[in-house]
């Protein structure tokens, strides 16, 4: 059958994946620390019917051959780790990383996960936890009689206890940096886990060795730009339509062939 049918079908399938990804980005436009994804398409493979450069006579070579491409495919969904916009909340446990890096979170399984969402809470025993109740790593416990919490740009956590004037340091938040953050695996709940592709976590003080500094009382919103996503969606829809038209043309041609003999 015609290769055109399959090439166009691959284009339609690719655009479906594109719309799936755009829809997920849009759904998470208000998710703290969410990083948008994009689908990267590439051409599939080529069938060579006639090789360029084939000698056709003494000293004469074909300048161009005949190559027919077989469609498109998604090569990757790439997470874009650009900085999201900041929202000033004034909440002392809302922390952003200005620049590169991830907070480390201990999952119930004991494994370390990574997140950009710094909307922390306190649990009943004063531990700093995520909205899902997973504790921050290294663990920070805020004493019960605390009046004020301050988190420095370098991750130093200091508290002022009731009846005291001088703040005292109770812990240090460290953040992890990856050679290839796009290689992290999404595990939901705004968490990522390290993979062989991301490289090992380079844990250290915020603000040093390429890690971003921390800022307290601010949240990092998603980096989804609604207008951009909608434009991508229009492009995807039109590409989908064009490919479906290509299928129709190929189908009509086959029908014409079938009707050649009356």
């Amino acid at each position, binding site marked *: 059958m*015609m*290769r*055109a*049918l399959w*090439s*166009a079908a*691959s*284009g339609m399938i*690719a*655009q479906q994946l*594109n719309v799936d990804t755009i829809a997920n980005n849009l759904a998470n436009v208000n998710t703290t620390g969410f990083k948008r994804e994009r689908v990267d*398409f*590439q*051409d*599939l*493979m*080529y069938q060579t*019917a*006639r090789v*360029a*450069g084939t000698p056709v006579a003494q000293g004469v070579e*074909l300048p*161009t*051959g*005949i*190559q*027919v*491409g077989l*469609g*498109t495919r998604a*090569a*990757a969904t*790439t997470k*874009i780790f*650009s900085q999201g916009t900041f929202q000033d909340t004034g909440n002392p446990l809302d922390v952003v990383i200005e620049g590169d890096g991830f907070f480390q979170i201990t999952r119930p399984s004991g494994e370390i996960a990574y997140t950009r969402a710094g909307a922390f809470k306190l649990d009943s025993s004063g531990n700093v936890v995520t909205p899902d109740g997973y504790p921050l790593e290294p663990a920070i416990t805020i004493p019960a009689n605390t009046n004020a919490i301050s988190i420095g740009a370098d991750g130093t956590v200091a508290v002022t206890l009731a009846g005291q004037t001088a703040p005292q340091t109770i812990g240090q938040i460290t953040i992890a940096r990856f*050679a*290839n953050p*796009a*290689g992290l695996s999404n595990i939901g709940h705004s968490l990522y886990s390290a993979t*062989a592709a*991301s*490289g*090992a976590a*380079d844990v250290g003080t915020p603000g040093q*060795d*390429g890690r971003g500094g921390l800022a307290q009382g601010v949240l990092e919103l998603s980096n989804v730009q609604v207008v951009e996503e909608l434009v991508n969606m229009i492009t*995807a829809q*039109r*590409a989908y339509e*064009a*490919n479906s*038209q*290509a299928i129709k*043309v*190929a189908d009509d*041609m086959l029908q*014409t062939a079938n009707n*050649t*003999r*009356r």
Partner: protein
Amino acid sequence: MLRGLYAAASAMVAQLARQDVYANNLANANSVGFRRSRVALGQFPADLQAALDTAGPAAGGAAAAATDLDTTQGPLTTTSRPLDLALTGDAFFTIQTPNGPAYTRDGRFMLDSRSRLVTLQGQFVLGEQGPITLPATDFTVSAEGEISSGGSVVGKLRLVAPVNARQIGGGLFTAAQAGPAQAFSVSQGMVEQANVNGVQEMARMLNGYRLYEANATALRTQDETVSSLQRVVQ
């Protein structure tokens, strides 16, 4: 049999081949750095025609003669991702593959787990001195392809102009030889879209479809002529 029958049939086959190429172009309208293919139709080779034709030379129908790449510049779009590089002009990035160097206009690069610059398939993007390792800090890429970080140059992309490149899938091109790129510019935070225009590609497909129909009609007409001739004889 009638030579015209073969001529019309060969034209139909040739139009089908064109549609395959246009459908692939359309399918790749969103593939970054993709170059659309063009089809040139030629006359059916005269010597082949003579072999199946004992009645002497005649107009021999059509066949797909060649496909080549349309090397027009694709439009640049902004992504603001520092590892996205777009090229304008005649330059291609050089990629290390198991089968030797390949070339690409798709500058959506990544860093591997050891901070080396790689393609989406994980193949090394080559600089003048082989694979490029980026520092942990921010970096910028100049219009000439020089990568600098913290005020010092850490590498320079190997940008070449392949001669008679052909696409091999995965955004890559091969060529027997590649000379130095002459007129080009690298833009960071942008990608070069495919140089496929959906409307033009659709128009080509519809045009091909009508030519196909016309040849199908020609074929049928000749068939009916022969058939009515046979009725006269009977």
